């Protein structure tokens, strides 16, 4: 199939269309707007629903309603907009209905700026909305992966009656790369037994996130967590580079993962035995992969575009058994590969320790930048 040169945001939109999304609700925000704009043209063309809502709150609650029909629905936004949607996302999770959310992260906190960042890892991976729920979170690192993971997000959301998030950033959203788009999938014609599709001729169904009886609520909490165990058992995805003989490892997700790849290649060219692990599902996190490499490597460098959010998951997965170092740029700054290469050199030179916190060491080293 022919490759097309597409902007990340538009590629996600077209991938969603081809995955059979039947309703899109959103509100413009940079650096995500091209996605909404593309949908505003493409959805009506196909006779599907597009609504630019009056606000993010309006949009997410329209998603909530539409998701109750069992059809494929989505929204997209960027950091501050996603914050506004979190109440609705929690309700959707609490109602156990599928939806796909795309978060094109930008610099923050607060209004921040419109440059690429990864500071909403915790917001997406570790909750955000209230209550015990676990969204599936997929982190692409290229336009092609943005396409593939958008399609996967719809499949996983349906399979696990879950919120599935495609977590990208301004850089991935704005850049153009060649990609192969999937074939157009036929729209769903049969709907799950829980979906509200009009009750004529059958018993009435009702969907809600309200459980006034705590024991009923607890039952639902157990159900969600048992379903999450299935997700953890079946859906972990990651990509490895140069890991066969690696003595050291760099790890990062999305944009920082691909910047790290350039640095790792440069280090390899110098004869340094360093590999790269790039988690593709950041939730479920590839815990076992990190637990395994602890036995094989002398040190791990975590690279992020936030102050060490995934770092905590790596520390938990490796149980402080191997030295971990941390490097990040924040506030909308994408690290250059040479900055990561310097950190690889520093790690290889040592000394390394499992004492103290990698974030503290990083902050102390970068004190001169005050």
């Amino acid at each position, binding site marked *: 199939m022919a*490759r097309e*040169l597409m902007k990340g945001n538009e590629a996600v939109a077209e991938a969603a269309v081809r995955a059979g999304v039947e309703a899109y609700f959103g509100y413009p925000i*940079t*650096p995500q707007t091209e996605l909404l704009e593309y949908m505003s043209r493409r959805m009506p063309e196909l006779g599907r629903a597009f609504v630019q809502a009056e606000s993010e709150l309006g949009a997410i609650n329209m998603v909530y309603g539409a998701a109750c029909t069992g059809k494929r629905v989505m929204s997209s936004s960027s950091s501050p907009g996603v914050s506004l949607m979190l109440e609705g996302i929690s309700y959707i999770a609490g109602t156990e209905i599928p939806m796909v959310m795309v978060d094109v992260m930008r610099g923050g906190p607060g209004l921040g700026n*419109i*440059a690429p960042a990864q500071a909403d890892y915790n917001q997406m991976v570790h909750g955000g909305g209230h209550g015990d729920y676990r969204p599936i979170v997929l982190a692409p690192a290229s336009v092609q992966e943005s396409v593939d993971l958008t399609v996967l997000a719809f499949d996983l959301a349906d399979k696990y009656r879950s919120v599935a998030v495609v977590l990208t950033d*301004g*850089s991935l959203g*704005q*850049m*153009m*790369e*060649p990609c192969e788009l999937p074939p157009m999938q036929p729209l769903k014609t049969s709907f799950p037994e829980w979906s509200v599709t009009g009750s004529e001729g059958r018993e009435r169904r009702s969907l809600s996130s309200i459980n006034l009886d705590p024991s009923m609520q607890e039952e639902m909490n157990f159900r969600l967590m048992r379903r999450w165990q299935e997700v953890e058992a079946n859906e972990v995805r990651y990509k490895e580079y140069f890991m066969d003989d690696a003595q050291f490892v760099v790890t990062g997700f999305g944009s920082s993962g*691909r*910047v*790290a*790849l*350039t*640095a790792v*290649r440069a280090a390899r060219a110098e004869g340094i035995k360093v590999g790269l692990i790039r988690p593709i599902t950041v939730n479920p996190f590839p815990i076992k992969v990190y637990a395994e490499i602890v036995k094989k490597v002398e040190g791990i460098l975590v690279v992020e575009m936030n102050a060490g959010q995934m770092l905590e998951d790596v520390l938990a997965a490796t149980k402080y058994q191997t030295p971990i170092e941390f490097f990040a740029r924040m506030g909308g700054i*994408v690290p*250059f*590969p*040479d900055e990561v290469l310097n950190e690889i050199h520093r790690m290889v030179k040592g000394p390394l320790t499992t004492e103290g916190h990698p974030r503290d060491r990083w902050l102390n080293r970068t004190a001169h930048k005050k």
Partner: protein
Amino acid sequence: MQTEIIIAGFGGQGVLFAGQLLAYAGMDEGKNVTWIPSYGPEMRGGTANCTVIVSDEEIGSPLVRNPSAVIAMNRPSLDKYEDQVKPGGVLVVNASIVDRPVNRTDIKVVEVDANGIAEKLGDKRMTNMVLLGALLANLPVLPQAAIEKALKGHLPERHHKLLPKNYEALSEGAKHKAK
């Protein structure tokens, strides 16, 4: 093998389009490519730039500190990027509006009266194509024919009447070799 090109200038000079054209041509030649614009609260007449990477392998970072080549379409772009070009790299300067000489001696410098040439061809909007032609004549990244093919393949049909002028602009630019 990886080649990185930064194209920079004023908004409206065709900076982003010239970069996209390179990316299309690279893709059509079977290469891996990335195109990433500077984006921000930009305004008409402000500065714009994009980075294009053409590579034989999976591309890591879409941004580079030291590109293989730079096209500086105006003075602020030359001031910003002159020092960043890799030693031995190529710097193409739009000499029509850049009012200072290039200081670096360890790179290939190509000065082109691109506005003048474009105006002679009858359309000032061809400035970017003249400079792109000059770049390709000095940087072995893609043949000019690949750019011409990409123009034809990806420009909407209604603009196809402009193709011969664009080809001519590329060829005029290509006459400029680094000193």
